[in-house]
């Protein structure tokens, strides 16, 4: 797949502190990348600002659709849409005046711009909001309007810093549905504190820690490589060590543990449980529990293991 964004040893310092440390990786065109930071210093916002073009990296190179982000800056700007965390609209103008003003500085076909603008106004249910002065709008409505501003330009890359922050439940659902409808149509890079959303909407997840990418894969592969998709807990009336030794040798079993009369193990599919069950003929089981792992479990396990939290 062709690269949409390529980082080559990109580093960023703020007040002498490293916020991004020599990042080298690529993001495929039309893929959706969710990013998570484990703390305020993770460099996540700076990472998004660099892609958006608001900051230049202190060292290293960034390529957007093969174009150097510094040398070909003006060409790149037409490709990117950026929804910042904080509302950046002029409070003295109406939302529509803001959108028209900013979009008039891009080299875009006016007919196409109007067409997209009308489409996204309906999609985001913003008809009644666009003619209100920005300082009279709620933060949630402003986020949708900022998204409208960026989407109406039909960007090839959309960078979103917590796109549904401050929104009510209805607007959140509306926005995520719209973004999901754009999956595979443009490159999307977004940060969110909602792990449920990230889990269900990504091609790839980047987990930042202290300016470095700590994890980089899709959830399926991350779970597969790290801890398995499921955790099984079987409680016995009497659980003897020879039986545990047999279970340990079952194919595809991950990290089996014996805790008194309880067996805990992970696996990537439920068939492993059936294999274990074949060894349990004649043994009294008092309880069985199957847990499917989620992103939060992966992060918790990862950080506990690394001693980060």
């Amino acid at each position: 797949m062709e690269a949409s964004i390529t980082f080559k040893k990109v580093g960023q310092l703020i007040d002498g502190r490293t916020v991004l440390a020599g990042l080298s990786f690529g993001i495929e065109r039309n893929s959706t990348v969710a990013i998570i930071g484990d703390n305020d210093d993770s460099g996540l916002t700076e990472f998004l600002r660099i892609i958006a073009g608001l900051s230049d990296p202190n060292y290293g190179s960034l390529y957007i659709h093969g174009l150097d982000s510094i040398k070909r800056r003006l060409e790149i700007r037409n490709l990117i849409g950026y929804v910042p965390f904080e509302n950046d609209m002029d409070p003295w103008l109406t939302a529509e005046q803001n959108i028209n003003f900013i979009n008039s500085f891009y080299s875009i076909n006016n007919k196409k711009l109007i067409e997209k603008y009308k489409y996204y106004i309906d999609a985001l249910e913003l008809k009644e909001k666009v003619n209100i002065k920005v300082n009279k709008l709620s933060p949630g409505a402003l986020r949708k309007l900022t998204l409208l501003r960026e989407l109406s330009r039909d960007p090839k890359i959309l960078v979103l810093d917590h796109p549904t922050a401050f929104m009510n439940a209805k607007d959140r659902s509306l926005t995520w549905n719209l973004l999901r409808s754009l999956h595979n149509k443009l490159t999307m890079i977004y940060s969110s504190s909602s792990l449920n959303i990230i889990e269900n909407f990504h091609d790839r997840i980047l987990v930042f820690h202290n300016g470095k990418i700590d994890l980089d894969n899709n959830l399926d592969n991350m779970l597969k490589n790290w801890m398995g998709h499921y955790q099984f807990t079987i409680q016995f009336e009497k659980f003897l060590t020879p039986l545990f030794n047999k279970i340990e040798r079952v194919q595809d079993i991950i990290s089996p543990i014996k805790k008194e009369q309880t067996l805990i193990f992970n696996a990537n599919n439920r068939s492993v449980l059936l294999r274990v069950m074949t060894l349990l003929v004649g043994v009294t089981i008092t309880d069985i529990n199957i847990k499917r792992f989620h992103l939060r479990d992966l992060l918790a396990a990862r950080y506990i293991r690394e001693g980060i939290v």
Partner: protein
Amino acid sequence: MISTLLIRRYWIIKNRFFTTLGLLLILPVFLNIVINLPFKRLVVNPLWNIPHEQWIYPGLTIIVVVMMMIPSVSRDLFDLRIHKKLLPALALTSISKSVYLYNFLITILIETIVYTILVMIVYSILIAPGFVVLDYLIMFPFILLFIALGANILITLSLIVDKTTLYNLLMLTFFLFIVFASGTVIEFEYFPEVIGNILRYLPTGQIMQSLRMALFSGVINWLILLGALVTIILWTFLNCILFKKRLTK
């Protein structure tokens, strides 16, 4: 781009139409009461026997127009900048920041031309200086030069200061400078010699002196005009660099 910026100025004025109109009408009247009327009684022997009304007219016009310009510049380059509104989005567009600032200055000048005409009309009624049309035409380019210089000072202050209290203090200082130390109301002869000489040779003082020289003796000092123009161009250039630096910070 100028048309886009002018449309934006129109939107802003439209959104605050009555405030702007009220300010435009009240300000000249207020300044007439607090500056013109007491000075008229204070100055018993006018300099070079020029009628007080004629002498003070261009200065008062400049003060009002500069005051009208302060909110426009402050809002767009200080307020929006420190609150991270509009300018970050603007920084991401495909236009050059220098070109933007250059066009912003032109837009402000166009806006102030409208204000200048309106204020001139208001003061012609209020003060009745007895000027002929040619006098107004002579005054106009000088006022515009002064405004362009003032706009550049305001732009620099709006771009270099980040603290609201300091900025407000500087705006007050700027206003007091325009009223008392730029030759708009008080002639440099009234200052102690050293201070008067310093103020006289500042670009603001030079423009005011040239304006009065052209208006009252018919002599246009092209060298001073050219010098002021070069100062404005260079200052604008420096402001463009400053703007670029501040936006990429």
